[in-house]
């Protein structure tokens, strides 16, 4: 971390004189590629409601962790989200109901369980507010380290599985006829989203986290013509909004997560207007 701090001290930027801003910037530089990459597949696989539901389940995991008196409720949250995503994949493969109905079932159950656990015995909900809104400025170096680790894992996973995931998402029959284990690839992918969502929830906040998982790719789709551009634009938009949002939040004193989300929405609006020019 000290290398990062002294590196940023070389930059003549006022807001980067503060350590919490340096931490936040580093966290966003790690999160943006994560969100950018994962969002391409979430949107292609029509899983945007699923990632939203995972956010809810992560919150439930945190509530359970807090009640159990764990000092690191995040660990419990990761485990709970993983269990949630695996259970969802299992039920989806056995049920004839449509995916969005099942997501609704799981999502509302997770939220209800979270609130139930959080308020058990007359507990106050206030201490959970920071998970709803999120605050990237208070991220700790240890959490940044975990994000870096997850980014490495996701990049490796992506390198080996992106082709299979894409094919499974756009044409499952073609994928399985080519010997791709469609179910396994999708389960691994949902597990990856579960971990990323849970680790980002305290810095981005449950309420807007999903916009970061959907907007980069949604904006990118407006202008991309192939997978390379799709991924590249998605990551670029996420980076741009991440750095821009942090700057806006510093000077206006608003939530960084919300500023990032709004910037992404603006990028979506611009690319939406440009979409006709791309054949």
């Amino acid at each position, binding site marked *: 971390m000290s290398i990062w701090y002294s590196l940023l001290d070389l930059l003549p930027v006022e807001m980067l004189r503060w350590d919490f801003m340096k931490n936040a910037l580093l966290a966003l530089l790690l999160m943006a590629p994560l969100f950018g990459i994962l969002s391409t597949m979430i949107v292609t696989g029509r899983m945007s409601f699923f990632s939203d539901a995972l956010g809810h389940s992560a919150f439930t995991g945190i509530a359970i962790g807090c009640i159990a008196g764990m000092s690191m409720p995040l660990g419990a949250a990761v485990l709970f989200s993983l269990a949630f995503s695996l259970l969802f994949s299992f039920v989806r493969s056995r049920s004839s109901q449509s995916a969005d109905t099942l997501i609704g079932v799981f999502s509302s159950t997770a939220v209800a369980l979270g609130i139930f656990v959080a308020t058990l015995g007359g507990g106050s909900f206030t201490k959970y507010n920071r998970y709803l809104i999120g605050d990237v400025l208070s991220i700790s170096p240890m959490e940044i380290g975990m994000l870096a680790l997850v980014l490495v894992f996701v990049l490796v996973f992506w390198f080996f599985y992106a*082709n299979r995931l894409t094919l499974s998402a756009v044409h499952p029959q073609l994928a399985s006829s080519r010997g791709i284990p469609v179910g396994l690839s999708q389960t691994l992918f949902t597990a990856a989203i579960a971990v990323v969502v849970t680790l980002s929830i305290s810095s981005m906040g449950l309420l807007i986290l999903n916009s970061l998982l959907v907007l980069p790719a949604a904006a990118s789709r407006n202008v991309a013509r192939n997978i*390379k551009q*799709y*991924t*590249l634009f998605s990551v670029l938009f996420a980076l741009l909004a991440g750095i821009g949002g942090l700057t806006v939040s510093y000077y206006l004193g608003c939530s960084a997560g919300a500023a990032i989300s709004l910037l992404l929405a603006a990028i979506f609006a611009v690319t939406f207007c440009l979409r006709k020019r791309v054949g």
Partner: protein
Amino acid sequence: MKELSHDRDCGQSCCLRVEKLSVKIGNDEILKNAELHVHCGELAALIGPNGAGKSTLLKAILGQRDYTGVIAFSQPGQRSKKPRIGYVPQSPSFDPSEPISVADLFACCMSRRPAFLGLSKSMRQTVKTCLQRVHGEDLIDKRVGTLSGGELQRVLLALALEPIPNILILDEPLSGVDVEGMNALMDMLDEIRKTYDLSILMTTHDFSMLPRYADQVALIDHTVVCKGTPQEVLSSEAFRRTFHMQGGSL
């Protein structure tokens, strides 16, 4: 089962033999005692009402469904060796906004190199060669969602032809394809069959093209109800019974 005059020698020239084939999914018996022989170099078409088990038969042949009975392959000179099967699945239309080019689709199917890094030069050349087989070189940079029904089938066909298979299996290749595209596609299948000396097994709901292109037609309704030349099957009592009662027409 009513066997029409389809009594060619099934020795060396028989590419695919299906005997006493039954497939159960849960408690439903989708296929029972199906018998079918596809000869080398032949275009065989499976017809039948929806839910009759046509796709299930194809999937059993592809090894994607558990079955009882015999599915045996043989090639001239090398009997019962597992052949290469090219498969063109029944295709949903892609989301028009999907930012996946035809080249990307090939890369996802054939290459280990992640498609988000872009295609290597050699891969791009391979894709071009594959697309040339279906006269579709100009489709390489088009997005899959913007292809017409006929173009999409040609692209999927090109994928199934790499490497060149011994048997080509197509599930409803004509659905979603307009009349002009349909004739072009059938002409192309005919040309491919002759050029690469392979057998083709396809399902279809379009009977009008059968007399012109199919060597053998099998009517499926949970078993092979009748089989023979297109003329024989289309004029059979079984065909009339199956389709007129179902409200189908020629």
